[in-house]
């Protein structure tokens, strides 16, 4: 195996759905050997969540599972059976990192505490991701993504001010918790490199979401101002429909003169002195918004985006997956990589969010089939053929 940032690191992932698996994926995609523990028969719950090809459920065809589990190995193991727990403990004993997403009370019940695990492996780094963390009065509160969003206060900032707050799509809470957990884990790994000491990391999903909005905390603690959802002006951030129904997001605050904006849009009416100053534009905002919105319906969003960038206006276009897959910048940087899965076939996957030497930029192994590596991994622990047969019959693996 080539030398990469994490090529000497073994990770045991006892996690499902988004948060733990994305943390595992970050480690696996940059070279770690990640062994994913799945329930015999059912596997990661993401295997049962859509979307699927043709909307026909199949445990090897969930797009969420395929995306979040590249470069891992899958071992089926019933950790609620004594022999299964025995196997898990033997795996953890030789591991560098354990990623778990069980709630704290469940970890206690299973005896998967850092004290117990580090007794046999003091170098272990244990990343525990749970909704509210291991301490505090909400530790055992029931929750799902949307509850975590609500409690974090981020949900209140998202959506239309006249409507109900809106959660973010596609399990972003889990993505945030995973990214935050990986920063702590990498810090812990570098610390362990120097000292030989592992440690326990307690990540709260709610705090992972809460910590994202950057301005709102000090607006409150310095001024007493409490933020909520807002409406953006047409000229500064609103999504405005263009020709063909694409949406453009414009900003005029990047420093380029407003007269350039008039020229960019081909709207000489904007050169009227009443729009020349920002005070004037605020005063006449309704007229301005109408002029601009109407003109945008005649313009192609992506063409306008490029023209704007060349005049140093920062614009964006609401792109769909179709647009992104066809995007010349994505192609020029070879961001997407073809991953050939034995059941689903070859598809273009988003590549690593940053490229780093020693880790292939273009190749990835597909997500594992359920239990694909059970025998290989258990044999490595010294279980022989007969033992594997018994474990299978007892539905441990």
């Amino acid at each position: 195996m080539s030398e990469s940032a994490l090529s000497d690191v073994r990770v045991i992932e006892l996690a499902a759905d988004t948060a733990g698996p994305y943390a595992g994926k970050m480690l696996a995609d940059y070279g770690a050997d990640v062994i994913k523990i799945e329930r015999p028969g059912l596997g990661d719950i993401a295997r049962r969540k859509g979307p699927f090809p043709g909307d026909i459920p199949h445990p090897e065809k969930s797009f969420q599972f395929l995306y979040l589990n590249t470069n891992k190995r899958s071992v089926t193991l019933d950790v609620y059976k004594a022999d299964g727990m025995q196997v898990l403990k033997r795996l953890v004993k030789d591991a560098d990192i354990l990623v778990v997403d069980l709630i704290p009370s469940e970890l206690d019940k299973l005896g998967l505490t850092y004290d117990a695990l580090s007794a046999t492996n003091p170098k272990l780094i244990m990343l525990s991701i749970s909704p509210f963390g291991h301490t505090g009065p909400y530790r055992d509160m029931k929750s799902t993504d949307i509850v975590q969003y609500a409690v974090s206060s981020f949900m209140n900032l998202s959506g239309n001010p006249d409507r109900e707050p809106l959660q973010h799509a596609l399990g972003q809470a889990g993505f945030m918790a995973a990214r935050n957990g990986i920063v702590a884990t990498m810090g812990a790994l570098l610390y362990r490199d120097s000292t030989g000491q592992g440690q326990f990391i307690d990540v709260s999903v709610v705090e992972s979401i809460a910590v994202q909005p950057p301005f709102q905390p000090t607006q409150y603690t310095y001024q007493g101002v409490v933020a909520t959802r807002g409406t953006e002006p047409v000229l500064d951030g609103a999504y405005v429909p263009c020709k063909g129904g694409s949406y453009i997001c414009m900003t005029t605050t990047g420093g380029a003169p407003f007269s350039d904006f008039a020229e960019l849009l081909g709207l000489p009416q904007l050169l009227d002195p009443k729009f020349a100053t920002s005070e004037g534009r605020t005063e006449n905002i309704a007229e301005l918004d109408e002029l601009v919105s109407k003109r945008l319906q005649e313009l192609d969003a992506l063409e306008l985006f490029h023209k704007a960038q060349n005049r140093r206006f920062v614009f964006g276009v609401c792109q769909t997956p179709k647009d992104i897959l066809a995007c010349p910048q994505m192609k020029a940087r070879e961001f997407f990589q073809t991953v050939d899965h034995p059941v689903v076939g070859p598809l273009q996957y988003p590549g690593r969010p940053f490229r780093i030497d020693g880790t292939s930029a273009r190749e990835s192994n597909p997500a594992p089939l359920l239990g694909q590596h059970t025998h290989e991994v258990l044999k490595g622990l010294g279980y022989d053929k007969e033992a594997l047969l018994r474990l299978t019959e007892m539905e441990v693996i």
Partner: protein
Amino acid sequence: MTPKKAGTEGQMRVKALEGIRIITVEDFLALPFATMLLADLGAEVIRVQSHTRMIPWTMGPFPDSQPGPRYWDHNGTYDGWYRNKKSLTLDFAKPKGVQLFKELVATADIVMENNRPGVMKKFGLDYEALRQVKPDIIVITSSGYGHQGLWGNYGAFARAIDAMSGMSNACGYVGEGPVRTNASYMDTTTAWHNATAAMMALRYRRKTGRGQWIDHSMYETGVACIGQMILDYQVNGRTDHRIGNHHSVWAPHGCYRCAGNDEWVVIATTDEDEWKTLCRTMGRPELATDERFATPMARYDNQDALNAVIAEWTKPQDRHKVADLLQKAGVPAGAVNRIDDIFKDPHFKERGFIQWYSRPDAKEMGDALSRPYFGWPFKMSKTQPSIESIPNLGQHNEYVLGTILGKSEAEIAQLYQEGVIAKEPVDAEQMRPKPSKPGTEVGRGGLYKWDQDYKKVLGLKY
């Protein structure tokens, strides 16, 4: 590097990244937030900034909305992201500024920057130039679309990337247009990746002896948030599936209005027991056998009608009371909090998520003696961060130039005189912001209220 105990006032802490030196040339937000995390973990992060460019310091929020005598040093936005860093001023427009930067890079492990692509090259400070100075240097550039590729000179803000990356396209109310995730999500997302990239590159260098240039693109980080939709499009041809606050399977699952102005509660059932408990708790046990709602499939198909029934129940009630009642009964629910709720909530206090920091010069600035900030969503058993300092502009000029680079006092004095370094912005007085009244802004631009009792609520002391 041998981690050692670092002394701070009244406590000792062990730092994960002790001995690592990071130089950062940064502006809004995807990088400052990342280098903050690295400084929190114990790296020595030296923020190099020009005192000739005023823009970032004028935005506030200022204590009580009053720009103080050194308003650029008491500024909530930057206080939030400067913590634990060191501040060096350098004017890159002067050759000496560029020269000193190179001398500093020769002592560093990592250089990070998020200027518009091309800016550092213009000063002769791109990766190729810096590796001449330090062959194993790690350089991380963070920009909207990456330096390499066709769009290398394009600028970006978080909101533009939210749109471009397909994130907005995935978010929104059922049957309506795209909605931005808001609150600079794409910036902070990129920030966590920037910090991770730095630590991975450090580990790679430790193993191989080699540095490298990592050219990070916000756009790509954004697309990494919607991976399953990229796969789905290729097979199913779908370009959007906005489901708002619905769950893909379970109902009821949504956000319901409560008593008051813009007060909401979320309720999310995920099995039969929780549904039946919800019916009992609402005092509507008959709903559980109503044929429109009797099975999960029926509830999913009739969720609009069901949501209307639930909203009728929540509407006259307090959001926290509804959430507590349901939680006690065993139904996942939560009040939609606002920012002030987080500072008041005992859970976040008890976990140490709220961290207080006292500025040494608070009293002379007439500021509160101590203020609360958000801490970390992680708790590390051996190397937990703390807020040790928030630097003033140029506070570490003497340390960096004298202690690290060995310049004499006379040389440093000369640099001040020539304007290569400074302790205040050149146009501090011309640009001085006017005191604002936050109360007049409420109702516009996403401001909910001005809580004039906030000092009492937070327990600020003067």
